[in-house]
């Protein structure tokens, strides 16, 4: 199990107060806080050995390159990639998915082809496909939800017929739902489609094995897994990365440039044009070390327990006044808990609980197609991570009680 008190001591921001109250950070599904180990790794790089990567032959350039490539290797190990060269650094999941959309999809999809997504996708896994659909006449198909907030796979075979790609989140940022990626990948492959996984809400919270998933593309982001913003990545099967045309053109991604053209660098650098977020990559490496130190199994177990505690306490305290949008079964859900409360608008709830030092997200969570399916304009979302404990859940509940009092009709 995770020693939460020791974890909390590693996060400087948790020592601050908001409105005179202890900071209770329950918005890690949006972005996680950073441990001192990550801050120190980035600071040390800048103070002691910063230079551009892959260019200089001098000592500090070599040190920086080793740190940057070392971070890639750590990420590769974390998700069980076959080799570090299968990890392309991007700025976030959004860029990872856009890379696939612009490079692989535009080289391989044409009018009449189909892409299958789900009703619980984040805009990052919807809008790039809308853009492609509009440009190429590609059809977008949607896997619906069951009343239990799981994917309804009844019509999966029909939806996948003739599809070129199945693009699914491993864990929903709104519902918390964990999707059965291996099962979906098998179905996609049987239909001749490739499988893209938006793992933004999975890699930070549970053991991820891209080979066991048998996926083709997996996107993830650093800032949700204790790392800095501005760094994330794409894992893809090596033969796909080799065959894909480059995405952004510029320095670093080339082998040779002449007056008449260019040849591309090897994978993964073929997809890393220009100076990358170097310190951020090193910070991400430190975040991976931190999570690995805790153990992703232990992280998952901790969040499962805490989510169970939260669901029980919320229901106990508020009964029918609080509607949770997401599965109740802890085996199929992560730590994002979205809810409606007493007809109080999510923005009002968020505003009032902030007064108690509690940070929750209010709005559509970049999942407007899902909000339409749920028939709600916005929800309030609390989400849990390694530094949260039962006292945080209790603080949320007391703050919600104050909001209820405040807006009582």
């Amino acid at each position, binding site marked *: 199990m995770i020693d939460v008190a020791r974890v909390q001591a590693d996060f400087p921001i948790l020592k601050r107060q908001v*409105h005179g109250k202890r900071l209770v950070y329950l918005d890690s599904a949006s972005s996680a806080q950073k441990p001192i180990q990550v801050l120190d790794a980035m600071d040390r790089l800048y103070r002691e050995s910063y230079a551009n990567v892959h260019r200089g032959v001098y000592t500090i350039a070599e040190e920086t390159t080793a740190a940057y490539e070392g971070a890639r290797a750590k990420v590769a190990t974390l998700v069980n990639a076959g080799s570090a060269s299968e990890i392309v650094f991007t700025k976030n999941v959004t860029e990872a998915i856009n890379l696939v959309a612009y490079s692989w999809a535009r080289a391989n999809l044409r009018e009449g082809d189909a892409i299958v997504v789900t009703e619980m996708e984040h805009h990052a896994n919807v809008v790039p496909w809308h853009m492609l659909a509009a440009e190429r006449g590609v059809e977008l198909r949607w896997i619906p939800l069951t009343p239990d907030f799981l994917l309804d796979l009844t019509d999966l075979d029909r939806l996948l017929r003739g599809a070129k790609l199945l693009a699914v989140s491993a864990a929903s940022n709104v519902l918390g739902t964990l999707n059965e990626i291996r099962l979906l990948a098998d179905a996609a492959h049987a239909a001749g489609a490739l499988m893209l996984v938006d793992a933004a809400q999975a890699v930070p919270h549970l053991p991820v094995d891209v080979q066991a998933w048998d996926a083709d593309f997996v996107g993830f982001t650093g800032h949700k897994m204790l790392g800095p913003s501005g760094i994330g990545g794409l894992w893809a099967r090596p033969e796909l990365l080799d065959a894909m045309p480059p995405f952004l053109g510029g320095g670093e991604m080339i082998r040779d440039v002449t007056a008449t053209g260019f040849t591309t660098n090897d994978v993964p650098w073929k997809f890393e044009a220009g100076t990358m977020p170097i310190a951020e990559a090193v910070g991400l490496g430190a975040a991976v070390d931190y999570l690995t130190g805790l153990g992703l199994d232990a992280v998952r177990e901790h969040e499962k327990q805490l989510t169970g505690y939260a669901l029980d306490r919320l229901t106990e305290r508020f009964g029918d006044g609080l509607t949770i949008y997401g599965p109740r079964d802890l085996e199929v859900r992560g730590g994002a808990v979205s809810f409606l409360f007493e007809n109080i*608008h999510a*923005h009002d709830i968020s*505003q009032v609980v902030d*007064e108690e030092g509690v940070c929750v997200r209010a*709005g559509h969570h970049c999942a407007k197609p899902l*909000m339409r399916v749920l028939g709600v*304009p916005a929800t309030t979302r609390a989400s849990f991570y390694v530094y949260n404990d039962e006292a945080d859940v209790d603080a949320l509940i007391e703050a919600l009680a104050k909001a209820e009092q405040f807006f009582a009709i």
Partner: protein
Amino acid sequence: MAGLEDLYREIILDHYRAPRNRGELPVPPAIRVEGFNPLCGDEVILYLEVDDGVVTDVRTAGQGCSISQASTSMMSAAVKGQPVDEARRLIHAFKVLMSIHESKLEGDGDDADQSADLTGVRLGDLEALQGVVKFPVRIKCATLAWNTLEQGLDEAR
């Protein structure tokens, strides 16, 4: 530091709990106009009856946060029965109230520099919404009804 009582003044909560002029009007003669804030899902629907240069009746529908709904209610009460010109002056005055001036944020209350054509405009209860400017992300909640009204008056011309 701005506290909750700056944002949620009692008069605002009163309009939120008991919104004035809720309902619909037959279209035509009334016109129906919709305002939408895609970021938070706030929705304001206005039915306006404009007769001989006067806003003779207003009804409101829609859903959203307390600030957007209270502002809608207060707006409807303020412009009902007013000449269109006066309604437009109110819209202008309200937008000035909602604009973020450094001096206002620091609370020195020097409002004397507002443009001259607003002299004589009385915001009354609407002044209660001034606390919203201390919460910049909520300003759009307060202005939604007024932008929708402006759009409606333009259409009614």
